């Protein structure tokens, strides 16, 4: 199946280059009238040519981009108006596995149900690459992206750090993970998801373990130790009666049921804005165990609109696109590069917790993410609830 598609791509390329006489003779009618930029090298395509090629496709199909998540609503609108493109949005609530499944299921189909671009948890990039679901492409700003596949198959676009989202007045403001074990937090601490279902909650367990480990784990051995310590932390928190196992969504936070929730900073800060002081939320970056959760972008290897997909990423990874993430409280992955060049507006930066709080943020590798996730989910019920 994959050979069929790559052959078609190759046809376009070879026809455009006026070469490949043998293949072209097999399908002489497939030759496009306009020369389209080469897709096989994976190198960045000059913007003018890319825009023209994308506009000839006319539309882009996205998946799993909720409008209230990391400002994707504005990102999509800006892309549409700036380049005169249509955007067809598939299931905004899909998870990373669903996104890969959507590519897999539509390998042969080029209809509106086949996604062009995906935004997945970094741990899922392994499957995506192994199964040949994503195509390589290096955007113009590729060199300034600190976290990526060197071959250009995926790159991180933004990250969040896990923070404490605290209702002011309901509980004392904590400064670190160990504070939460104190008796004044009895029945007050909740997670934003189910450990067996949500990656965010798996990372929450891992982060508490990193805090206990006392340093950011650079080796696999340290990481596994941190995962183990994290389970121990939650066992103690549960035994102390401090952990409420209810899932803290915005409704439960608003009614005060879950006075302290661990959540990605961009979600917590967006909650702070939308609840608008009722109740008043304080966002605390813990002193230790600050874990960064990056998301990875990629292009479907079977994209019906390959140029529109590449244009999307050129836009998202440009300074303009990256600042749109920041507006939605997600840390753009090129934050340091942009900060060094002074292109981040001061008022935008002021809405976030101070930059120093993130100085120690830990970026786990894909291998560490995979191994610790398995360990934590396999042992969660046994370790914490003693089953």
């Amino acid at each position, binding site marked *: 199946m994959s050979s069929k598609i790559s052959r078609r791509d190759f046809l376009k390329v070879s026809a455009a280059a006026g070469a490949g006489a043998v293949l072209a003779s097999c399908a002489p009618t497939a030759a496009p009238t306009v020369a389209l930029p080469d897709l096989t090298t994976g190198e960045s395509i000059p913007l003018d040519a890319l825009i023209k090629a994308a506009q000839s496709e006319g539309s882009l199909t996205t998946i799993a981009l909720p409008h209230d998540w990391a400002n994707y609503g504005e990102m999509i609108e800006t892309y549409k108006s700036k380049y005169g493109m249509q955007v067809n949005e598939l299931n905004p609530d899909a998870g990373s596995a669903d996104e890969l499944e959507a590519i897999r299921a539509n390998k042969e189909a080029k209809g509106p149900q086949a996604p062009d671009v995906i935004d997945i948890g970094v741990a899922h990039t392994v499957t995506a690459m192994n199964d040949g679901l994503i195509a390589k492409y290096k955007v113009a700003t590729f060199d300034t992206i600190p976290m990526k596949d060197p071959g250009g198959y995926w790159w991180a676009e933004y990250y969040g750090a896990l923070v404490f989202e605290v209702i002011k007045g309901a509980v004392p403001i904590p400064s670190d993970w160990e504070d939460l074990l104190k008796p004044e937090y009895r029945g007050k601490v909740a997670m934003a998801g*189910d450990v067996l279902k949500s990656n965010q909650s798996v990372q929450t367990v891992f982060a508490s373990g990193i805090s206990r480990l006392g340093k950011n784990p650079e080796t696999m051995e340290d990481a596994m130790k941190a995962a183990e310590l994290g389970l121990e932390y939650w066992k103690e928190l549960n035994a102390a009666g401090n952990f409420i196992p209810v899932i803290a969504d915005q409704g439960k936070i608003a009614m005060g049921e879950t006075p302290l929730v661990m959540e990605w900073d961009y979600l917590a800060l967006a909650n702070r804005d939308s609840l608008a002081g009722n109740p008043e939320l304080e966002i605390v970056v813990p002193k230790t165990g600050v874990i960064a959760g990056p998301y990875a972008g990629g292009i479907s290897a079977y994209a019906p609109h390959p140029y529109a997909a590449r244009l999307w990423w050129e836009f998202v990874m440009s300074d303009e696109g990256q600042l749109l993430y920041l507006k939605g409280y997600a840390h753009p992955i090129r934050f340091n590069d942009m900060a060094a060049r002074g292109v981040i507006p001061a008022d935008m930066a002021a809405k976030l917790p101070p930059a120093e709080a993130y100085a120690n943020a830990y970026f786990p590798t894909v291998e560490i993410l995979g191994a610790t996730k398995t360990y934590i989910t396999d042992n969660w019920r046994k370790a914490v609830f003693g089953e």
Partner: protein
Amino acid sequence: MAVERSPRADARPRQDQGDAPRARPPRKPFSWTWVGVAPFFVFAFLFLFLPSASIFFRSFESLDHRFTFQNILDLFQKSDIRNAYKLSLQISAATALGGAFLGFLLAYAVTIGGLPRAVRNFMLSFSGVASNFAGVPLAFAFVATMGNAGLVTRIIESTTGIDIHAGGFTIYNFWGLSIVYMYFQFPLMVLIMAPALDGLRREWREACENLGGSTWHYWRYVALPILAPTLLGTAILLFGNAFGAYATAYAFTGSFLNLVTIVIGAQIQGDVLYNPGLGNAMALGMIVIMSMVMSVYIWSQRRAARWVR
């Protein structure tokens, strides 16, 4: 209906037919009545038979879409999954029994108990609404009244100064979820039992008393045997009601209670566990358990119904 002739009827002399061999009864013309029930059968096929078949076949599918028995083996080998079945069975049994008992008493009170007509009407309307009140709204309602920051919790705290959650009380455990389930369990029992209790005739009781029977005798030998099929059937219904509940439990406790439906949810969606084949195998396990429960029900129903004919 096929007409079975009793031997006696056959033995009657037939003047109209004489000795001629009997003709086969003519084929009945197509009955339009079938059209009326067709939507039901189409519906049952699409939403009961097809999904069940899909669950069965996908139970044997591995993550990379190959045939495997591993999912079925996992049902017995993984302790998380065994615990999930155990917990689901426990909570279903507890709330089915509790719901049946409470519901029966309530239904008795409003029918035979002789409470004013208005109470009965109110109770039946309430039951009709409450038995359908489930899922996320129900969970949220309980959290909002009895939770850490719930209305009732706060009222008790502000009037008596006692924080009911301080002593270790929490609604987020087995009994908490049981109470939540009871909210839709016992009204269902009331709805079904009230008409059945109405069906108990006063004459039966009087007959029992005339023969010198006590209240105990009446219930033991007359009323309960008559009610038994309904009681059993409703208890099974309540059991299934709780066994299959997902949204209520998920919205209420999230990850804390390891129910089968919640684990299935984690297997077929979500970023973490994700093994749809195993999820389907667990669903198949639920179907098997419900079939076993139903078989026991049918068997005991037959026994119980002997006295009603």
